[in-house]
């Protein structure tokens, strides 16, 4: 943990001159803020406060927020409590499998600073060392009102384009990865290819690659090739089958 501060860069969007495109961007941002599918990763006691937030008392659906089941479908990752190291691996995988833009909300004190698990050897203390947290909702546990308040805050930030932790993850992936490697060891890897994604979507920054990503490439267990390759003809023999 070399750095404690959470550097937040101002979003450097491409300069779009077309006024219609601006309107379109505005519309998309608006819709993003009004339709938030959340994946609640119920790691701790904070989870207990979510059902009341969703059901008839507080009814999150009013705000366009609804729970989703898999990371693919979700926009918001809710970490609702302390994160053990073993859990953190899954949290990171889950985060990387979500489609961008994606937002992380840390609920409960435990995600902020470890909370009552400060002295635990097996708990990650600061979530934002490993994932770009867009919003913390502190409390032990925060009440549904607080959760809703947090959600509204996030909506505003999405609307204004400030909630760009996901970009940060791409841009400074090397830093996040370094922290992750520090915790999990050098052979840490997920099947998701963050660097490839960043370059594919033009989201890479100066900090996307660095010493840690190089370490990752060294230690990575290669995945078998999977891209479509098309070739007709070739040798007659079947690979891996004994020739009778």
């Amino acid at each position, binding site marked *: 943990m070399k750095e404690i501060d959470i550097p937040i860069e101002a979003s450097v969007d491409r300069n779009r001159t077309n006024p219609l495109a601006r309107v379109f961007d505005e519309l998309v941002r608006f819709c993003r803020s009004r339709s938030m599918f959340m994946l609640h990763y119920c790691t701790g006691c904070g989870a207990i406060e979510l059902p009341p937030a969703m059901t008839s008392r507080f009814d999150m659906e009013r705000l366009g927020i609804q729970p989703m089941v898999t990371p693919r479908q979700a926009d918001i990752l809710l970490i609702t409590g302390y994160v053990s190291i073993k859990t953190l691996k899954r*949290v990171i995988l889950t985060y990387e499998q979500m489609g961008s833009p994606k937002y992380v909300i840390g609920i409960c004190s435990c995600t902020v600073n470890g909370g009552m698990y400060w002295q635990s050897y097996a708990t990650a203390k600061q979530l934002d060392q490993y994932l770009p947290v867009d919003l913390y909702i502190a409390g032990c546990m925060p009440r549904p009102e607080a959760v809703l308040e947090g959600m509204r805050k996030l909506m505003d930030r999405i609307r204004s384009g400030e909630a760009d932790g996901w970009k940060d993850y791409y841009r400074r992936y090397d830093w996040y990865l370094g922290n992750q490697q520090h915790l999990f060891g050098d052979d840490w890897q997920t099947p998701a290819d963050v660097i490839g994604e960043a370059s594919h*979507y033009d989201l890479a920054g100066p900090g996307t690659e660095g010493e840690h990503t190089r370490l990752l490439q060294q230690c990575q267990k290669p995945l078998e090739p999977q891209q479509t390759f098309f070739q*007709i*003809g070739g040798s007659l023999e079947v*690979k891996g089958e004994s020739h*009778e």
Partner: protein
Amino acid sequence: MTPLDELLLFSGLTLVFLLLLGRFSYAGKVATVFYGGQLLFLAKMADRIVDGSIVTFSLQVELFGQQMSWRFDALSWFFAVITLGAGLLSSWYASGEWGERFRRRGGNLWLLNVALAANVFSMLILLGSGDLLALFIGWELVSWASFLLMTVAGGRAIQAAMRYITYAMSGAMAILAGIVLLWSHAGGLQYGQIIEVIPQLSQAQVWLLVALFGSGFAVKMGLLPFHLWQAAAYAETPGPGAAFFGAISARMGLYAIILVLVQLIGLARLSELMIPFTFLDMRDLWAWIAVLTIILPTYIALRQSDARYLLAWHGIGQGGYMLLGLVMGDALGSAGGLLHVFNYATNQAVLFFAVFAVMFRTGTADLNKLGGLITRMPISFFAMLVGIIGLAGLPPMNGFVSKWFVYRSLMIEGEPLLFLGAIIGTLGTILSVYKLIHNTFLGQLRVEHVEVREAPWSMVAPMIILMLLIFATGVAPGLVLDWVALVQSAVGLPVVENTLGGVELASGSLDMLWVVGVLFAGFGIGALLFYSGGRTRQVHQLDNYAGGHFLTAEIRYHYSDNFYAGLMHLIRPWYRGSFVWLESTLGSLLGIAASLIQRLYGALHPSIYLLVTVVVTLTWVLL
């Protein structure tokens, strides 16, 4: 030389060529060209067939007072087109790398080619038969030629072939019995004589005739309850042979059914034959046999874990649609049944080609040992996709059109239960073919298949041709319906009045040109919507949601076994294997009788028999 002379001579020549020179490496390719030549000869007679005239064979044989002649009418021609098409493409498929590999693995490629040619030749002879004796000769030739092709693979195929030949011989003997019965009444076996004599026969006699001929032909068709032999026999035949069998071989039974039951005896006569103790007539019985043939084998196919067996079982089931359409007897139904012969042949051939392409590359057709091959064998995938859409009878492929005809016929004739049965069969087909394509091409790619490539051109090209054919005749079914109409008029069925896109009816028409056009327009809109969204990026298959679990290549997570678990949980007890039980019981009974008789022959004091027999006989004589 009539065109039929040329065709049969050339077909025989193909056979002789393969027999003598089939061991040379280019023989398969030459044979493919020869099949093409046969198709040309067939095309040459097309104008006469369109005129509604009959193409005769110059040679006529008279033996023991029986005149035997051969000729082609529209019915023969229609089936011959499919036969030769299937032969051509199968031979093409076998002529390249597939055959090379087959030979290198110790297979007898020469025998395979010869057997294929013998099948085509004998089928042409059967299709050309101009009287019942010629029909029987053709029938037997086809049976034995099929047997030959079935035995090429050896091993398990032999058992299947033995089972086949037992069924086939029983069927042939039933047919022969029918033929001699007819002979004893008509004094001859010309079609004309028989059409004359049928009205004079009593109901019981016609009953017997229909039962004999029907069961004989049903064996070849694999209709219930004579279906047990077919799946294994077809599935165990090596690649192109299986495709050929699947496409057309069993349809010879349908040809004969059309010829004898529809053309000679007539559907009207069938509906006069009541079944004792029921309110059903013979035609209903046939319709119900057809529906049961659709349902039971289809649901047996659903349980198969070997792609070849799955397809072979479907082949049996699809025969039911043809028969069902045919016995409805109206213009729509019979057109649907006949059209389905063509459509099904194309579908089944392409499916077998695709399955054997996969086998060629991976060495297995076990549906639990494949998966994810779409990224490796995209053309084969596409071929199978087109094939299964056709087989399941969904638009825009041709299988839909023929099934639509059958459904509409059932609706117009007011047969709700038959309709329901047909639909249940279709639904079962959809389930089963999805399993086929899912377990083979979709899902997880196995580590051992990472290096797999698309099949070679010699195998891909026939698939592409068939795909185009399936799609083209799906969009413009009128192309084939024109032929079907010719067949209908030749057989004496009501003739369907078709358009290029389907059929115009007051009570609901079908125009596939529009339907497919709109469907693809819809796809276009869907594509527009889709591609207007954000840029996609393909991820690795291991980058997959597994509840936070880290997937690795060693983990087999492809869902393939017990695919329809919920359904099977409910219907598994319904699979009782009654027919297998019946078959084995018959076999055991015969075995018991045989061993008793053997014991009789092995008795120590044979002279006692003699004395006993003498006493018994004398008593019988004197009393």
